[in-house]
């Protein structure tokens, strides 16, 4: 092997620069991490984003508020329903539209079902990141039940553009409540298996405990929200601190762990699933009869001004910022997407860990790449 070749792999000072991605099994999408390694130890992580940039914010400027909804689906596709809701809430609040009770409760149930589905998918993928391949299938198997509920009511399983300013596109299926309760019962039975398979496992604990510790200050400094922020003791659940919909009328806990390591982030999500099940149980019974949408003008025009609305998606705080000039299209639309902030903390918390830990850490941040690039 000639010397030229050697330099190609290993740099003069012994560093190895490894490009993880854009096609890599554990970046969960087209994210490129430029990792500087010393042996197997990570010296620096530089995320390169933009591989799946579609210009959603720009596209929004040429769409009416009703049309924007379907674009928000495509950002964080695992929290599609919450993204829709953010835009809908913004329009409703701006115009003072009173949404029927029925819609509010249905939205909450869907929010939480989406959250569970998202966490299930994350659990599966996290297991796979750490090499527990079977966990992947158990998570997917149970998620399928939620997707079936979605499909029955909205016709699509993942991106269901089901919200519309003022209410819902159409009414839910008559079996919706029944099937949701059946799922809650089923999943309460299956959840202990998740813990037995992964949470309690000694290998899993060693792989996650004490790995990628993020202090509360770091979390706040980087704006890390959602389960990743709450794993660091940062109380940032929008459902609690700025309730929207009917969250203020439902009983649930905000899960906060103080350790700030990967395992804390993991536990926040697992406990959140339980809380979501509780919320669903409370909300499903309260779905009253009534119209599925309020009366809304066919062409929505927001009065001139700036508007902001935030919701809690499965990954953190999603903010929608709109500047309107009174026309039917927004003048400027901006999304404060949770994953963008969650990604860039990676360098700070992964430094000094091994390359295997890098996978465990980036997995525990639960990144969805299209949401970062938009």
């Amino acid at each position, binding site marked *: 092997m000639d010397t030229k070749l050697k330099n190609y792999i290993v740099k003069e000072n012994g560093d190895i620069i490894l490009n993880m991605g854009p096609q890599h099994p554990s970046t969960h999408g087209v994210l490129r991490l430029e990792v500087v390694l010393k042996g197997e130890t990570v010296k620096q992580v530089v995320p390169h984003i933009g591989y799946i940039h579609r210009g959603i914010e720009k596209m929004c400027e040429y769409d009416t508020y009703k049309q924007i909804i379907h674009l928000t689906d495509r950002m964080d596709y695992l929290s599609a329903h919450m993204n829709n809701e953010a835009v809908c809430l913004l329009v409703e609040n701006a115009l003072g539209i009173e949404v029927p009770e029925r819609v509010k409760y249905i939205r909450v149930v869907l929010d939480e079902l989406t959250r569970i589905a998202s966490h299930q998918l994350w659990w599966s993928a996290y297991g796979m990141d750490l090499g527990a391949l079977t966990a992947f299938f158990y998570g997917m198997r149970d998620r399928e039940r939620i997707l079936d509920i979605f499909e029955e009511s909205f*016709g699509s399983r993942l991106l269901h553009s089901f919200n519309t300013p003022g209410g819902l596109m159409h009414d839910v299926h008559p079996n919706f409540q029944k099937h949701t309760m059946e799922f809650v019962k089923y999943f309460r039975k299956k959840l202990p298996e998740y813990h037995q398979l992964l949470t309690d496992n000694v290998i899993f604990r060693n792989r996650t405990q004490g790995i990628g510790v993020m202090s509360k200050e770091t979390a706040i400094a980087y704006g890390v929200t959602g389960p990743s922020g709450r794993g660091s003791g940062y109380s940032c659940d929008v459902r609690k601190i700025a309730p929207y919909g009917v969250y203020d009328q439902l009983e649930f806990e905000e899960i906060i762990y103080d350790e700030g390591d990967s395992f804390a982030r993991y536990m926040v999500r697992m406990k959140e699933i339980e809380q979501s099940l509780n919320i669903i149980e409370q909300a499903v019974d309260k779905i009253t009869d009534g119209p599925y949408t309020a009366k809304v003008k066919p062409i929505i025009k927001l009065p001139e001004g700036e508007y902001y609305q935030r919701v809690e998606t499965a990954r953190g705080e999603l903010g929608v910022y709109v500047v309107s000039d009174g026309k039917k299209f927004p003048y400027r639309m901006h999304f404060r997407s949770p994953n963008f902030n969650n990604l860039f903390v990676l360098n700070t918390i992964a430094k000094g860990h091994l390359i295997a830990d890098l996978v465990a850490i980036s997995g525990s941040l639960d990144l969805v790449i299209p949401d970062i690039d938009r």
Partner: protein
Amino acid sequence: MSGVIKYFADILHGIKTLWGGMRITGKYFLSPKEIVTQQYPEIRHKQKIVYDRFKGEVIMPHDENNQHNCTGCGVCEMYCPNGSIEIITKKIPGENGKMIKVIDKHIYHLSMCTFCGLCIKVCPTQALAWGQNFEHAVYDRSKLTKVLNKPGSSYKGLNKKKEAKS
């Protein structure tokens, strides 16, 4: 001494948790009834695999007289965020010699559709609906451009008007 005890306790605890995981996979190994996968191409013929509301594609239902509900108003075209619908209208002589506007071709680009459902919701005459077909794979992209109104079809309302008059 306590270090030694902890050492062995650690080992025992580790073995216990590992065995807990193995029990789960072992249980599923021995219960083939829990298998959830479906045999896809075959299962189509045995049972319905999508729900009634499934959004497979946008279709335009026709009745037995080859008539549909579309007036050619163009609202769906206007609402579609992706420009997947093109309405081409034509003028035909109506009852009293006046030219009336009817739909000539309702062109639907399946490849550009994001299944947002707006066109179906806004159509004033409910001319559009969701079809449940989901096997859209084709060899040529141009095959995904469809004309929704069938050849020779006409607007239902026209007859009604005629009947009402006669």
